[in-house]
């Protein structure tokens, strides 16, 4: 298959952030006239690889090659000149400019130093026709739906007449009609000899559209082969699987009959019509690809964003909490994923952070007792093995210890339902082990734990049941016996095995 030279290639590239390896010795070659799929779980290193190919990042080792020749400096501008166009997930559009002005942005045709509007109109129109955008070119992009904006973004890439087109989850916000147009377009571009790199979590699309696949797992390449003769299950298997070692505590069922939380037809943020039951003493996992609405489910239960339900019962009391203080009053506690911005007050002392939820319970104008606060905080620090002087600012702690503070601060309220949003993200292995043991400990103590996680092994090894979310709905509810990384990833990506659970 190596007859023509690849237009763009990475040879043995590695990249680490803050000593944390993200890509290890990965190679990929984009051939003219081929649609190349790039697959991998969240955090497998796909975005980093795209950034290396587009010049936004430089590899620590290894080389980027254009037309078979290694390039020493590869900046975004160099990449553009070489004909590499990237359609990123975050759009690069300006709402107040028109469709045409957005498409031409950064590469306007000029006449006498001014933007040549007639030429821009003609070229933008040609690009829009390709992607089926029929809105007037003068329409401000701010008036378009997300899906149409995505099409503008693709038209913007085509306007530059690329030789290499990199698409990062282009269909995530497209309607089925738009997806069909895009699929036909990519077929056509492939026929014209353009090299296409296609990142998608929809395996059916990948199977239909692509000829070659590279699979990344934990920053390493686990497959680089033709798609012919591979099925969806095979691809999923290449993406998952890691030796859990002794990271996870032994799992014993501590589930009780008492229902802690029961909601019917909950709609909040991206989530639509979700039914969920959580019993006391169990850990219920919320899985799925990042950004499918999982966070909104937790925030909706917590009263932090507006939510609608057909019925809801929390500890026998009906109705969802309308705000956070009410949620705390009713025994709910929430630990956010972004501990630096939402979970902690970094510049304030650890002791203040630990006491913050308790302050909310105290009479507003009663004098504080420093000695008592210190005593409580010391107890929490001991229980959660939080190291270091409690008088120091929370930012002095390591990520793992910060996370323990964010969790420990709720304990004085003795919450009966813990809503945890990715509690082990960016946490070192040792702390992960501690947090996992705590979670099972909470369940054993009769608390209900809802664990939203982007780490699939975590869901498999800690949870009694896992609800997999896709497009704002729970698509599958996997019971303990059916839990496996394959099953979760397959459900998250919509590959087979769908809704086989009750």
């Amino acid at each position, binding site marked *: 298959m190596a007859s023509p030279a690849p237009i763009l290639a990475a040879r043995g590239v590695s990249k680490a952030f803050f000593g944390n390896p993200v890509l290890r010795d990965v190679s990929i070659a984009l051939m003219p006239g081929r649609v190349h799929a790039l697959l991998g779980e969240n955090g497998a290193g796909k975005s980093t690889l795209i950034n290396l190919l587009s010049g936004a990042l430089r590899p620590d080792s290894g080389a980027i090659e254009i037309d078979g020749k290694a390039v020493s400096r590869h900046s*975004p501008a160099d990449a553009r000149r070489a004909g590499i166009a990237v359609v990123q997930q975050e759009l690069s559009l300006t*709402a*107040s400019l028109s469709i045409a002005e957005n498409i031409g942005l950064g*590469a306007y045709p000029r006449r006498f130093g*001014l*933007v040549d509007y007639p030429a821009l109109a*003609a070229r933008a129109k040609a690009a829009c*026709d390709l992607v089926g955008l029929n809105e007037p070119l003068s329409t401000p992009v701010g008036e378009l739906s997300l899906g149409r904006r995505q099409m503008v973004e693709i038209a*913007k890439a085509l306007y530059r007449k690329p030789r290499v087109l990199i698409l990062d989850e282009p269909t995530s916000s497209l309607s089925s009609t738009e997806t069909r147009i895009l699929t036909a377009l990519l077929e056509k571009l492939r026929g014209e000899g353009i090299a296409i790199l296609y990142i998608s979590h929809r395996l059916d699309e990948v199977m239909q559209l692509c000829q070659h696949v590279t699979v990344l797992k934990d920053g390493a390449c686990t497959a680089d082969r033709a798609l012919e003769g591979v099925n969806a299950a095979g691809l999923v298997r290449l993406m998952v699987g890691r030796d859990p070692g002794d990271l996870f505590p032994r799992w014993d069922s501590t589930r009780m009959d008492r229902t802690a939380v029961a909601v019917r037809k909950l709609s909040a943020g991206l989530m639509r019509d979700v039914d969920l039951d959580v019993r006391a003493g169990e850990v219920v996992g919320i899985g799925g690809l990042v950004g499918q609405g999982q966070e909104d489910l937790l925030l909706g239960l917590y009263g932090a964003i507006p939510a609608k339900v057909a019925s809801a019962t929390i500890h026998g009391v009906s109705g969802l909490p309308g705000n956070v203080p009410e949620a705390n009053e009713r025994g709910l506690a929430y630990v956010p994923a972004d501990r630096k911005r939402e979970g902690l007050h970094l510049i304030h002392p650890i002791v203040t952070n630990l006491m913050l939820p308790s302050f909310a319970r105290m009479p507003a104008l009663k004098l504080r007792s420093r000695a008592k606060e210190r005593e409580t905080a010391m107890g929490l620090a001991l229980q959660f093995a939080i190291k270091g002087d409690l008088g120091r600012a929370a930012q002095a702690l390591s990520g793992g210890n910060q996370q323990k503070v964010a969790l420990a601060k709720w304990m004085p309220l003795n919450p009966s339902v813990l809503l945890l949003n990715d509690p082990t993200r960016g946490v070192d292995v040792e702390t992960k082990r501690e947090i996992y043991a705590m979670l099972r400990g909470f369940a054993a103590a009769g608390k209900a734990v809802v664990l939203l996680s982007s780490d699939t092994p975590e869901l498999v090894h800690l949870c009694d049941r896992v609800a997999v979310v896709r497009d704002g709905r729970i698509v599958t509810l996997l019971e303990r016996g059916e839990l496996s990384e394959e099953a979760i990833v397959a459900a998250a990506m919509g590959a087979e095995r769908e809704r086989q659970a009750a």
Partner: protein
Amino acid sequence: MSNTTLSPPARSGSLYWAIQAKRNIGVRGLFLVVLGFMVAYGFLFHGLFTGSGFAKFTQSWFPLALVAMAQAILMLTGGISLAIGALVSLGAVLAATTITGPLGVAGGTALVCLAGLGIGAVTGIIVVRLRLPAIVVTLAGSFIIAGAALLVLPRPGGAMPPWLSDLLAGNTPAAFGVLVVVVLLWKLYLATPLGLSLYAAGENPVGAYRSGVPVDAARIAAYAISGLLCTGAGLFVAAQTGSGDPIIGNSFTLNSIAAAVLGGIGFLGGQGTMRGALAGSLLLSLMISVMFFLGFTPVAQYVAQGLIIIGAVAIPQFRMRAR
């Protein structure tokens, strides 16, 4: 990419005009309010539609229009300036000390313009390259610039050639003519790739950078142009009063923000249009005149002005939430 022949633009330049027409959508309501105040003012002050009445009114509006533009350009890039008033003062004292002095009209005017461009560019470089908050840099800048104005002219004084004062602030609508030229030059700038990039650089700098837009250059250029407009307004104020005053510009800082906000310019960058900012400044001028003719006391004028500005910001918000 071959079907370029499919429905070519109806006529050359039609896209440009279609885009211009769409940009009116957000400010139509404002135009109506301005029109209403204009009618009210014309009703109260019959002289408005005579040559000299129109000249006088546009002269009172002109410096506010310039500083509103100066502020709006920066707000479009996601910045703001608290040094507008100090720059106006500096422009005024430089004009009043050099134009009748050794440099003459051409040299003095050039000095005023260069001072504005230069100070603006330096401010822009500090904000953009060092990534410092614009509000702090321009606040510090306002102290330095105001100090410089006091060094040039410690107390009101200096002089402007009487013929220049007559030309700009006499009975002819020359000021209005200058404003038309300034607006045309702005339209021309906005039709250049750098000028148009201002919106992208303000609203989505990361996306603009990835698209190959020279984001830093676009923002620094905006600061330079803003400075030029401010010292230009200072020159006009000096011509109006016939002398230089080192603190005459003070009120312009907050009024420029008020005018831009009235005109629908957002604080987050990339939101709003220059025609909106100009209409906002016109509305502010008209409001002051109308309230003066209605016999409002100065205190009542300030209160009413404040309420109207809050209302102008709140109404679009309510309309958005109602949707």
